[in-house]
């Protein structure tokens, strides 16, 4: 005698099978229309070969119409030392590099302490570390502009030690690098915290029981185990940092500290040559995608090793 229950269940299954895709459809459609298509629009503008009466590029929607001359110029101007955009690329790389160095130097000890040693204050410290995440980025920069003004608290504090006031906000690379580090450190600490938090305490105890000192335990156990977290933190911080244009505008505002993001903003929002702006966006995305893929390969290798 056939059992009615499986029949009924399979009837439900059929309805359910249609229900879940139907639920996923609007969101998927939204992301295709407003994330995938826009990215295609960047390419259509970057590879546009014609201009309208306002000198603005007419997007080439069909790949058959694509003309690569503008994009090739953008690439040569970016990568040859005499090119127009070479300097901003080099500056972006140097600023990001030093800001990331500061992030590691400050962020690693903080994440390590919070994850492994904070004890009963852990909840409080974590809340305080997370707080800047929810303070508006522009507000955090504004706070430093207050402090770094010529008659601000920083110069007053330096005055107590007899150091003459310094003009911090007029095109200083030092200020920009520290502002970048200050801005992105919260985003750096949290992924690292999550990875350090997952390390099995018993591994560290085992290392200690085998007579290995703290420094060597750190070098041979903790650091390798937190490698993936460190790389995740670096990638998560480096991606937005490379496209940043507001930090240096706020704390410096000088063309001497301008980065790739400033060039993109300038070309897209303030001039007719949107194809050059789109070309720079495309190039930036390609450079960042290279890092993203490297990161994805690393995570996959790590998870394969973990499952072995």
């Amino acid at each position: 005698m056939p059992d009615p229950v499986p029949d009924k269940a399979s009837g439900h299954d059929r309805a359910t099978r249609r229900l879940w895709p139907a639920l996923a459809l609007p969101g998927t459609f939204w992301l295709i229309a407003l994330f995938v298509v826009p990215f295609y629009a960047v390419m259509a503008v970057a590879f546009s070969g014609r201009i309208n009466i306002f000198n603005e590029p007419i997007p080439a929607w069909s790949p058959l119409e694509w003309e690569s001359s503008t994009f090739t110029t953008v690439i040569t101007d970016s990568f040859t030392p005499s090119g127009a955009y070479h300097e901003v690329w080099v500056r972006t790389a140097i600023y990001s590099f030093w800001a990331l160095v500061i992030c590691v130097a400050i962020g690693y000890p903080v994440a390590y302490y919070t994850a492994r040693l904070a004890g009963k204050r852990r909840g409080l410290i974590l809340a305080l570390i997370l707080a800047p995440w929810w303070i508006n980025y522009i507000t955090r920069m504004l706070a430093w502009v207050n402090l770094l003004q010529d008659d601000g608290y920083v110069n007053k504090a330096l005055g107590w030690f007899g150091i003459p006031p310094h003009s911090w906000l007029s095109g200083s690379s030092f200020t920009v690098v520290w502002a970048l580090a200050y801005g992105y450190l919260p985003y750096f600490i949290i992924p690292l915290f999550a990875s350090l938090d997952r390390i099995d305490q018993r591994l560290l105890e085992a290392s200690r029981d085998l007579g290995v000192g703290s420094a060597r335990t750190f070098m041979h156990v903790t650091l390798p185990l937190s490698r993936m977290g460190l790389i995740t933190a670096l990638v998560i911080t480096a991606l937005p940092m490379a496209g940043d244009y507001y930090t240096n505008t706020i704390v410096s505002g000088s063309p001497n500290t301008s980065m790739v993001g400033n060039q993109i903003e300038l070309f897209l929002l303030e001039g007719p040559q949107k194809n050059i702006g789109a070309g720079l966006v495309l190039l930036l995305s390609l450079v960042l995608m290279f890092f993203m893929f490297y990161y994805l390969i690393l995570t996959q290798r790590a998870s394969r090793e973990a499952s072995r």
Partner: protein
Amino acid sequence: MTVLERPAVAEVSSPIRSRALPWRNPWRRPYVLASITWLYILWSLVPVLIAVQFSFNDGRSRSTWQGFSRQWYCCNEGSVFEDPSMFHSLLNSLILGVATVIVATPLGVALAMGLTRWRSRTSAVANGISLVPLVTPEIVVGSALYLVVVNLYQFVPLGRPAMLLGHVTFTVSYVLVIVRSRLLSIGGEYEEAARDLGANSLQAIRTILLPLLMPAVFASAMIVFATSLDDFVVSQFLFGSADNETVPILLYNAVRAAPTPALNALASILLVGSFLALILAYVALRARRRSGDESALETLADWG
């Protein structure tokens, strides 16, 4: 016997410990790391607290304290609520935030349910696409949306409509991540039980799944609101004209143009707004977890 042996062990071990150099002792308190951490926390928060303090300054200076006053918040000329552009930006930010919540939350919840329960290759691809906005630099999202709105979706005017589309696009992924983690922890058993008892799929979702998801839905709505309130880059590419300035855009444009403490007051109001939203999200999560504040905090940390 055992009672007698214990002091002997202690006698042997304690001289060894005391002879060891202090920095070789693995059980010593981590003073250096603790001070780095607390110094970092001070460095990261004190400037903002000082900026909030100056919003109450009784004078025009943003670097010299001249006594307490509420004049930059209300009812004086040049205060946040009397300055038309500041008040307008506050209104714009609020309207945009609420509209983003209204669109992004249902969209993201449906997407999360669909992608989590629907197992196929297509759903895996859709899942991948929906997480990409989280790691794409904002300048790429902003400029791509700007170019598509200007060149292809010309029926969407720059300004509030374009900003709404942009904000929903990058906040949907947050809803997806939060709601999906809750869906995975609930598992499919409750819905199956409901269906075995005769509910159809829609009824099972409405009467079982949605109530179970409610804290996560609420928390993600609050996080969407806070994220939308704080967004600068996407808004800046899409706001079009000065009428549509949100608070972060106004702060950005005004910060280098000899501002008054009213700017600090505006920033403080924004700060209070996003913290209120966040505290509500945290309370919802905590009610859901019932296992102390740390785990809820760590969930927030994981989502960030």
